């Protein structure tokens, strides 16, 4: 149990902090909108981290799944369907189907070619979205209202929406973590390290990767549907390659050794952007170098930060030095 607590200390601190945030002076509608955005992007980033960190599949088209989820909400809204029990599953299903179709083709390639082919499918979705004139084309589509739940306007309540996003974020993190720990996840991780050996012991990586790709796409679709609700607006920018890049940067910055790194990365990027842009006119002049420095000095991303700090503290060194002594005593 203590080992579990130590291993998952970061999410066990971050998730309650997010739950407490509305009651610690971050309860105004501006802060709640910002936090909702960060949590929704965090959800999509966790699903991308399942692919990048877990399966070793670097996708540069993940925003397309998110955008398809968002556009499903918009299309159903235009058709007059706003019941969440219909809208959300449809959004998830649409994104999963797109992931299935494109993943089946993309997963035949690997490495840089996989990055580029997912980018290609993402761009195709982007240009398709910008040509749908009934949903505003390039200009985007403003929703008539947020999705309803059981016919009531529950999601209009910002605090309620905050906790819905937080709950789903926690659920996604737990499910994805459990998936990576399962036998299925073991095959995925083994195929990341050495596909040849995995094949030699009788597993074909392809179906495992495809299932992971579809699941990640479904989660991104859910995140997209929530994002459309958070902003009550959908535009092709939600599918652009720069959004895909942003998700990827969240995953890398957060660190890929743990899935919760993606949550840290999303929170760090969204909040830091907001804070710096209030502080400075040309805030990217500070944000850009920070990214570079984080790559140069934080080898394991933000998720590796506690360990990196601990190892430099005298306490950390003492326990490390104590290690061999203890094992000696055991012997």
């Amino acid at each position: 149990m203590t080992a579990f607590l130590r291993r998952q200390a970061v999410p066990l601190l971050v998730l309650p902090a997010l739950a407490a945030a509305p009651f610690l002076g971050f309860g105004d509608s501006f802060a709640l909108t910002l936090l909702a955005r960060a949590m929704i992007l965090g959800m999509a980033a966790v699903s991308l981290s399942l692919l990048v960190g877990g399966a070793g599949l670097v996708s540069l088209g993940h925003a397309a799944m998110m955008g398809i989820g968002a556009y499903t909400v918009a299309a159903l809204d235009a058709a007059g369907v706003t019941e969440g029990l219909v809208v959300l599953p449809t959004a998830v299903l649409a994104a999963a189907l797109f992931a299935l179709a494109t993943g089946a083709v993309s997963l035949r390639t690997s490495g840089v070619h996989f990055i580029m082919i997912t980018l290609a499918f993402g761009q195709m979705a982007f240009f398709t979205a910008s040509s749908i004139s009934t949903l505003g084309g390039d200009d985007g589509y403003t929703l008539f209202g947020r999705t309803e739940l059981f016919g009531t306007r529950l999601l209009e309540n910002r605090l309620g929406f905050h906790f819905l996003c937080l709950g789903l974020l926690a659920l996604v993190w737990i499910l994805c973590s459990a998936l990576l720990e399962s036998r299925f996840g073991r095959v995925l991780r083994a195929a990341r390290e050495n596909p040849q050996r995995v094949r030699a012991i009788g597993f074909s990586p392809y179906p495992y990767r495809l299932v992971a790709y579809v699941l990640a796409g479904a989660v991104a679709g859910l995140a997209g549907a929530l994002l459309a609700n958070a902003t009550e607006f959908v535009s092709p920018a939600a599918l652009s390659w720069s959004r895909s890049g942003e998700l990827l940067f969240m995953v890398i910055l957060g660190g890929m050794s743990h899935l919760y790194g993606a949550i840290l990365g999303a929170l760090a990027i969204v909040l830091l952007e907001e804070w710096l842009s209030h502080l400075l006119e040309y805030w990217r002049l500070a944000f850009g170098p920070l990214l570079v420095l984080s790559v140069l000095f934080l080898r394991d991303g933000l998720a590796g930060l506690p360990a990196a700090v601990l190892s430099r503290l005298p306490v950390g060194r003492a326990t490390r030095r104590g290690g061999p002594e203890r094992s000696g005593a055991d012997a």
Partner: protein
Amino acid sequence: MSLSLVLVQLLNGAQFGVLLFLVAAGLTLVFGVMDFINLAHGVQYMLGAYVAASLGVWAGDFWLGLLMALPVTLLIGLALEWLVFRHLYQRDHLAQVLATFGVILTLDEAARAIWGSAPLNVPQPGGLPGGIEIMPGLIYPVYRLVIIGAGLLVALLLWFLVERTRAGMLIRAGASNAPMVSALGVDIRRLFTAVFAFGAMLAGFAGALASPVFAVAPGMGDNVLILAFVVIVIGGIGSIRGAFIAALLVGLLDTAGRALLPDLLRLVMDASSARQTGAAIASMLVYIVMAAILFFRPVGLFPGPRA
């Protein structure tokens, strides 16, 4: 759709293609030889355009500005390599992607701080007749022909450099087995730095050439960067010849698609939806072709030394 329209589109496509080639050449060398993904390569294109434009205004002559932009972008490339990139060669691709993205953000914002967000006014290149009649009744701007000519000249020069000189031989050897070249007594680090700076200068040259034709604005390199990646993946990573052919292919497809597809679709659907669908499919065309090539021939058309 007349013959003259097709000819103009072909020339516009070739012009866009050679600009893409100039950017992609440096990208494919750096990627193929050093196995380094440099997202900040597009920034060099933007800086080339800005530096050429400002120095051109300062010197009162566009051509002087273009000429002076070359050493300036070369030095910026060297400085970036020394400050950031050389610490990333031993890291994985994802670390390189994030760090070079940080460089993009910084330099795009710096351009915005120095030159403002609005597109820059670039002096028109002097000393050239405005247009030339390439077909009876069809006048084409001479400067655009100059771009095509300059691009072809650089392509020829690069081919000679890589295939026929000692430095080119070392680059090719370094691409297929860097530790072995290093063991034979060649300073591979210095070779890498030189390749890097040279690639940066080529991208800067492309930006400078493009400055009177395209809008000079912050972030102008980002879309060129994505297309340049498409080019090097289609052409085969590390291959100059592949980059050249793929760049022309992408340039022609993109330009011709945008101009001709809406007209073609009008034959089968009404005018407004033809315009919309045509524009969407034209923008997708490059990516559809890339996905198809990757699916059937994952190493690209002309695989480089690593493949």
